Protein backbone atom coordinates (compact mmCIF):
# COMPACT_ATOMS: atom_id res chain seq x y z
CA UNK A 1 0.00 0.00 0.00
CA UNK A 2 1.28 3.46 -0.87
CA UNK A 3 1.65 5.50 2.38
CA UNK A 4 -0.29 8.69 3.11
CA UNK A 5 1.34 11.74 1.62
CA UNK A 6 3.06 13.78 4.37
CA UNK A 7 1.47 17.03 5.51
CA UNK A 8 3.17 19.50 7.82
CA UNK A 9 -0.03 20.34 9.70
CA UNK A 10 -1.37 16.89 10.61
CA UNK A 11 0.32 13.62 11.49
CA UNK A 12 -2.03 10.64 11.40
CA UNK A 13 -0.52 7.44 12.77
CA UNK A 14 -2.72 5.10 10.80
CA UNK A 15 -2.96 3.19 8.57
CA UNK A 16 0.39 1.45 8.60
CA UNK A 17 2.20 1.02 5.30
CA UNK A 18 1.36 -2.68 5.14
CA UNK A 19 -1.46 -3.87 2.91
CA UNK A 20 -4.68 -3.39 4.77
CA UNK A 21 -8.24 -4.61 4.46
CA UNK A 22 -10.84 -2.16 5.67
CA UNK A 23 -14.52 -2.51 6.48
CA UNK A 24 -16.69 0.50 5.77
CA UNK A 25 -20.30 1.59 5.67
CA UNK A 26 -21.81 1.30 2.24
CA UNK A 27 -25.32 1.63 0.86
CA UNK A 28 -26.05 -2.03 1.35
CA UNK A 29 -24.72 -2.09 4.94
CA UNK A 30 -21.05 -2.77 5.34
CA UNK A 31 -18.43 -3.78 2.78
CA UNK A 32 -14.72 -4.59 2.70
CA UNK A 33 -11.85 -3.78 0.38
CA UNK A 34 -8.08 -3.76 0.10
CA UNK A 35 -6.47 -0.33 0.46
CA UNK A 36 -4.19 0.69 -2.38
CA UNK A 37 -3.50 4.25 -1.36
CA UNK A 38 -4.53 6.88 1.18
CA UNK A 39 -4.89 10.36 -0.27
CA UNK A 40 -5.47 13.72 1.37
CA UNK A 41 -8.56 15.59 0.24
CA UNK A 42 -9.53 19.20 0.88
CA UNK A 43 -11.17 18.29 4.22
CA UNK A 44 -10.62 14.61 5.02
CA UNK A 45 -8.57 11.62 3.80
CA UNK A 46 -9.84 9.27 1.13
CA UNK A 47 -8.91 5.57 1.06
CA UNK A 48 -8.48 4.38 -2.51
CA UNK A 49 -9.18 0.67 -2.84
CA UNK A 50 -7.53 -1.68 -5.30
CA UNK A 51 -10.78 -1.95 -7.27
CA UNK A 52 -10.89 1.87 -7.71
CA UNK A 53 -13.54 2.67 -5.11
CA UNK A 54 -12.91 5.77 -2.99
CA UNK A 55 -13.92 5.60 0.68
CA UNK A 56 -13.82 8.67 2.95
CA UNK A 57 -12.02 8.01 6.23
CA UNK A 58 -15.08 8.72 8.40
CA UNK A 59 -16.96 5.80 6.78
CA UNK A 60 -14.39 3.25 7.88
CA UNK A 61 -15.53 0.96 10.65
CA UNK A 62 -13.52 -0.59 13.44
CA UNK A 63 -11.13 0.56 16.10
CA UNK A 64 -8.54 2.96 14.78
CA UNK A 65 -7.36 6.49 15.24
CA UNK A 66 -10.20 9.01 14.77
CA UNK A 67 -10.30 10.77 11.37
CA UNK A 68 -7.95 13.68 10.78
CA UNK A 69 -9.48 16.72 9.11
CA UNK A 70 -7.86 19.75 7.54
CA UNK A 71 -8.70 23.40 8.07
CA UNK A 72 -9.85 25.35 4.97
CA UNK A 73 -7.11 27.92 5.55
CA UNK A 74 -4.47 25.17 5.22
CA UNK A 75 -5.39 24.61 1.58
CA UNK A 76 -3.16 26.56 -0.79
CA UNK A 77 -4.49 28.38 -3.82
CA UNK A 78 -2.55 26.00 -6.09
CA UNK A 79 -4.07 22.94 -4.44
CA UNK A 80 -7.58 24.39 -4.60
CA UNK A 81 -7.26 25.40 -8.24
CA UNK A 82 -5.81 22.02 -9.22
CA UNK A 83 -8.78 20.37 -7.48
CA UNK A 84 -11.21 22.69 -9.32
CA UNK A 85 -9.61 21.98 -12.70
CA UNK A 86 -9.81 18.24 -12.05
CA UNK A 87 -13.52 18.47 -11.16
CA UNK A 88 -14.32 20.44 -14.31
CA UNK A 89 -12.43 17.99 -16.51
CA UNK A 90 -14.23 15.03 -14.89
CA UNK A 91 -17.57 16.77 -15.52
CA UNK A 92 -16.57 17.57 -19.12
CA UNK A 93 -15.58 13.92 -19.61
CA UNK A 94 -19.17 12.98 -18.82
CA UNK A 95 -18.54 11.35 -15.44
CA UNK A 96 -21.54 11.30 -13.12
CA UNK A 97 -21.10 12.31 -9.45
CA UNK A 98 -24.08 10.16 -8.60
CA UNK A 99 -21.95 7.06 -9.12
CA UNK A 100 -21.21 6.30 -5.48
CA UNK A 101 -17.72 5.45 -4.24
CA UNK A 102 -16.25 6.70 -7.54
CA UNK A 103 -13.62 9.47 -7.75
CA UNK A 104 -15.93 12.20 -9.10
CA UNK A 105 -18.48 11.56 -6.35
CA UNK A 106 -15.75 11.65 -3.68
CA UNK A 107 -13.96 14.73 -5.01
CA UNK A 108 -17.13 16.78 -5.58
CA UNK A 109 -18.40 15.88 -2.09
CA UNK A 110 -15.15 17.11 -0.52
CA UNK A 111 -15.08 20.25 -2.66
CA UNK A 112 -18.62 21.22 -1.62
CA UNK A 113 -17.83 20.57 2.07
CA UNK A 114 -14.63 22.60 1.79
CA UNK A 115 -16.38 25.47 -0.04
CA UNK A 116 -19.08 25.59 2.62
CA UNK A 117 -16.54 25.73 5.47
CA UNK A 118 -14.36 28.22 3.64
CA UNK A 119 -17.08 30.76 3.01
CA UNK A 120 -19.06 30.18 6.21
CA UNK A 121 -15.88 30.77 8.20
CA UNK A 122 -14.97 33.82 6.17
CA UNK A 123 -18.39 35.37 6.83
CA UNK A 124 -18.66 34.60 10.56
CA UNK A 125 -14.97 34.74 11.43
CA UNK A 126 -15.13 32.34 14.39
CA UNK A 127 -12.13 31.85 16.67
CA UNK A 128 -9.62 29.34 15.34
CA UNK A 129 -10.62 26.11 17.09
CA UNK A 130 -8.29 23.30 18.07
CA UNK A 131 -8.58 20.57 15.49
CA UNK A 132 -7.27 17.73 17.55
Amino acid sequence: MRPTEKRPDVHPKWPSEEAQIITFTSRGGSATGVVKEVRWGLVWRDFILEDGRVIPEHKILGEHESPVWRKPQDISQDEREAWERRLVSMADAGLDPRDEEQPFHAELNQYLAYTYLRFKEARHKPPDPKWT
Partner: protein
Amino acid sequence: MKIRVIPSEVREEAERYIMSKTYQSGQSGKQQVWSLLSEAGLVDIPTDEFSERVKEAKKAVMDRLGELLESTTDIEERDSAAYSLATLKKLETALQRKGTPRTAD
Protein backbone atom coordinates in the same frame (compact mmCIF):
# COMPACT_ATOMS: atom_id res chain seq x y z
CA MET B 1 -35.06 58.04 10.07
CA LYS B 2 -32.71 58.33 12.99
CA ILE B 3 -29.75 55.98 12.88
CA ARG B 4 -28.50 54.77 16.24
CA VAL B 5 -25.08 53.35 16.87
CA ILE B 6 -25.26 49.87 18.38
CA PRO B 7 -23.50 49.87 21.77
CA SER B 8 -20.33 47.77 21.68
CA GLU B 9 -21.52 45.44 24.48
CA VAL B 10 -24.69 44.64 22.53
CA ARG B 11 -22.70 44.05 19.36
CA GLU B 12 -20.22 41.82 21.19
CA GLU B 13 -23.05 39.78 22.66
CA ALA B 14 -24.60 39.37 19.20
CA GLU B 15 -21.24 38.26 17.81
CA ARG B 16 -20.82 35.75 20.65
CA TYR B 17 -24.29 34.37 19.85
CA ILE B 18 -23.45 34.00 16.15
CA MET B 19 -20.16 32.30 16.99
CA SER B 20 -21.88 29.94 19.43
CA LYS B 21 -24.18 28.96 16.57
CA THR B 22 -21.19 28.39 14.32
CA TYR B 23 -18.77 26.67 16.68
CA GLN B 24 -20.58 25.42 19.75
CA SER B 25 -18.58 25.80 22.92
CA GLY B 26 -17.39 22.66 24.64
CA GLN B 27 -16.74 20.86 21.37
CA SER B 28 -13.38 20.31 19.74
CA GLY B 29 -12.76 21.88 16.35
CA LYS B 30 -13.30 18.56 14.60
CA GLN B 31 -16.62 17.96 16.33
CA GLN B 32 -17.75 21.49 15.50
CA VAL B 33 -16.87 21.05 11.85
CA TRP B 34 -18.53 17.64 11.82
CA SER B 35 -21.73 19.22 13.24
CA LEU B 36 -21.63 22.05 10.71
CA LEU B 37 -21.16 19.72 7.76
CA SER B 38 -23.73 17.20 9.02
CA GLU B 39 -26.35 19.90 9.47
CA ALA B 40 -25.62 21.16 5.96
CA GLY B 41 -25.89 17.60 4.59
CA LEU B 42 -22.32 17.70 3.27
CA VAL B 43 -20.61 14.80 5.06
CA ASP B 44 -22.12 12.23 2.73
CA ILE B 45 -24.15 13.85 -0.05
CA PRO B 46 -27.02 11.63 -1.25
CA THR B 47 -26.68 10.82 -4.94
CA ASP B 48 -29.79 12.77 -5.93
CA GLU B 49 -28.85 15.94 -4.03
CA PHE B 50 -25.65 17.05 -5.78
CA SER B 51 -27.38 19.66 -7.95
CA GLU B 52 -29.03 21.20 -4.90
CA ARG B 53 -25.76 21.26 -2.92
CA VAL B 54 -23.93 22.92 -5.84
CA LYS B 55 -26.65 25.61 -5.92
CA GLU B 56 -26.25 26.19 -2.17
CA ALA B 57 -22.48 26.41 -2.48
CA LYS B 58 -22.89 28.94 -5.29
CA LYS B 59 -25.11 31.03 -3.05
CA ALA B 60 -22.55 30.93 -0.21
CA VAL B 61 -19.81 32.05 -2.61
CA MET B 62 -21.98 34.80 -4.10
CA ASP B 63 -22.86 36.13 -0.63
CA ARG B 64 -19.19 36.33 0.25
CA LEU B 65 -18.32 37.81 -3.13
CA GLY B 66 -20.91 40.54 -2.52
CA GLU B 67 -19.13 41.45 0.71
CA LEU B 68 -15.72 41.38 -0.96
CA LEU B 69 -16.87 43.61 -3.81
CA GLU B 70 -17.74 46.31 -1.28
CA SER B 71 -14.24 46.19 0.07
CA THR B 72 -11.20 47.66 -1.62
CA THR B 73 -8.91 45.22 0.19
CA ASP B 74 -9.02 41.40 -0.06
CA ILE B 75 -8.52 41.50 -3.84
CA GLU B 76 -6.85 38.10 -3.76
CA GLU B 77 -9.76 36.53 -1.89
CA ARG B 78 -12.18 38.22 -4.28
CA ASP B 79 -10.41 36.75 -7.31
CA SER B 80 -10.27 33.32 -5.75
CA ALA B 81 -13.99 33.45 -4.83
CA ALA B 82 -14.81 34.48 -8.42
CA TYR B 83 -12.75 31.54 -9.72
CA SER B 84 -14.59 29.13 -7.39
CA LEU B 85 -17.92 30.57 -8.50
CA ALA B 86 -16.98 29.95 -12.14
CA THR B 87 -16.05 26.35 -11.24
CA LEU B 88 -19.38 25.81 -9.52
CA LYS B 89 -21.26 27.23 -12.52
CA LYS B 90 -19.44 24.83 -14.86
CA LEU B 91 -20.24 21.91 -12.55
CA GLU B 92 -23.88 22.98 -12.33
CA THR B 93 -24.12 23.14 -16.13
CA ALA B 94 -22.50 19.70 -16.45
CA LEU B 95 -24.93 18.24 -13.91
CA GLN B 96 -27.86 19.78 -15.79
CA ARG B 97 -26.59 18.21 -19.02
CA LYS B 98 -26.77 14.87 -17.26
CA GLY B 99 -30.53 15.34 -17.16
CA THR B 100 -33.07 14.73 -14.48
CA PRO B 101 -31.82 13.59 -11.08
CA ARG B 102 -31.40 9.86 -10.86
CA THR B 103 -33.29 8.14 -8.09
CA ALA B 104 -31.02 6.50 -5.52
CA ASP B 105 -30.95 2.75 -6.02
